[in-house]
């Protein structure tokens, strides 16, 4: 109950973000040639941390990936929605960004293009399967409870529009390959 009103440390109002991203080699296994890594072995990001990068070469997107989608994250890159999973965990990964800045390139997104997500614990390749325009409150746009790994990128639509728009562009992708998966057992 106390933590509802008081934090464990003094408040930090810095506009700077914490970067825990250290790239790993794309080809080699990051942890002693293992196929999986335990969740407890990962340096799990705190809300607002940069923990990776997202690259879509065909869309000219190469941006920082943050854990959480607060203003600091979206002003500096794209953010993983806090209720979704991290790459490699075998669930839905939902990543948002602004349509006028870091996700502006999503206007070039097409089926078959590849997305690369690099984190400190592994690298993950996905392939775009679909691009859809939906309303911001359309719950059918994503399923956070899905039991298979799937990546969804989203941004406001139309692109390059002045003002805030109620429509969203959703880019769906399936996993292609990765150099490590997360072992969900403790």
């Amino acid at each position, binding site marked *: 109950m106390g933590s509802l*009103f008081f934090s464990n440390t*003094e408040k930090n109002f810095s506009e700077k973000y914490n970067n825990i991203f250290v790239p790993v080699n794309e080809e080699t296994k990051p942890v002693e040639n293992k196929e999986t890594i335990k969740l407890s072995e990962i340096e799990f990001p705190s809300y607002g941390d940069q923990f990776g990068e997202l690259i879509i070469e065909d869309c000219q997107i190469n941006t920082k990936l943050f854990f959480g989608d607060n203003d600091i994250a*979206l002003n500096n890159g794209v953010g993983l929605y806090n209720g979704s999973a991290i790459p490699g965990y075998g669930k839905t990964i939902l990543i948002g960004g602004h349509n*006028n800045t870091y996700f502006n390139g999503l206007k070039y997104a097409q089926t078959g293009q590849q997305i690369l997500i690099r984190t400190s614990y592994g690298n993950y390749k996905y392939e775009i399967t679909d691009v859809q325009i939906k309303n911001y409150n359309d719950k059918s746009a994503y399923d956070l409870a899905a039991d298979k790994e799937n990546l969804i990128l989203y941004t406001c639509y139309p692109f390059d529009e002045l*003002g*805030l728009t109620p429509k969203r562009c959703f880019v769906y992708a399936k996993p292609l390959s990765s150099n490590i998966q997360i072992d969900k057992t403790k």
Partner: protein
Amino acid sequence: MSYNSHSRQKSKVKPIIYGLLSFMLAFVLFLLSVFMVLETTVFSQDYMLSKMAETGYYSMLEDELKTELKSLGNASGLDESFAEDFVNSLDITEIEKQYISAFYCGDKTLVNTTEFKQQLYAALDKYMDDNGIDKSKTSQENLDYFVEQACERYVTQVSIPFFSFVANYIYNASKPVVIITISLAAAALIISAIIAFTNKFKHRRYRYLCYGCAGAFISVTLVPTVVLLSGKISQININTRSLYNLFVGYANGIFMYFFIYSAILLVLSFVTFVLYRRHYYKAINHS
């Protein structure tokens, strides 16, 4: 019952009665201190405004509002410079003062966004002209949604949480505070007078007065000391710098008032203790 046993019983009852009177004095002095602190802090508009000025609330609020609008502009295809033009600390200070004034008058603490909205639309028009953006191709619906979101963020920033909820209670509670404070002061004087004038020996009257003052000193000092030593105030979960600094400054100010009153009570305790010892030795020497 013999005269001696009656006299012994009387001598046992008297300390209990005076002990109770000392306890009552301590309690009344404690309440008096609390009400005097409340009157000069929580129920005082000047105290709130002075804390806002002291903690740099207005300028921090201006920065935060600019950051909020920059982020919103970033999401809406607007340059960072957009937010710089129509947010300034003078306007914010004026709006905040009106807001606080409404709070202490028991009015609904609503932030008027009419002017802000007008400024925003004018700034958007100017922005489109300056950047050669075709207005006919820009969706008015999207601009309206942006302005609506900006106003929402503006109201959230300028408002103080729970103020609209407690405004009426604070206003109603502030009315009888002066009467209660005067009544408590009168009660403290009456109890002190009873202790002073019904005791035959001077050292005893000072002893019971000392008990009352010391008890009040301990109770007035205890709560702020425990809270300050726990360091909880600086760990309060407030997410904006302006509000956090205001809260910490406001709470520390209240505790300072508590310490001022506890210092007065400490001096009173010390004086009555010195008088008690002096008269006690006099009484011993006489006997």
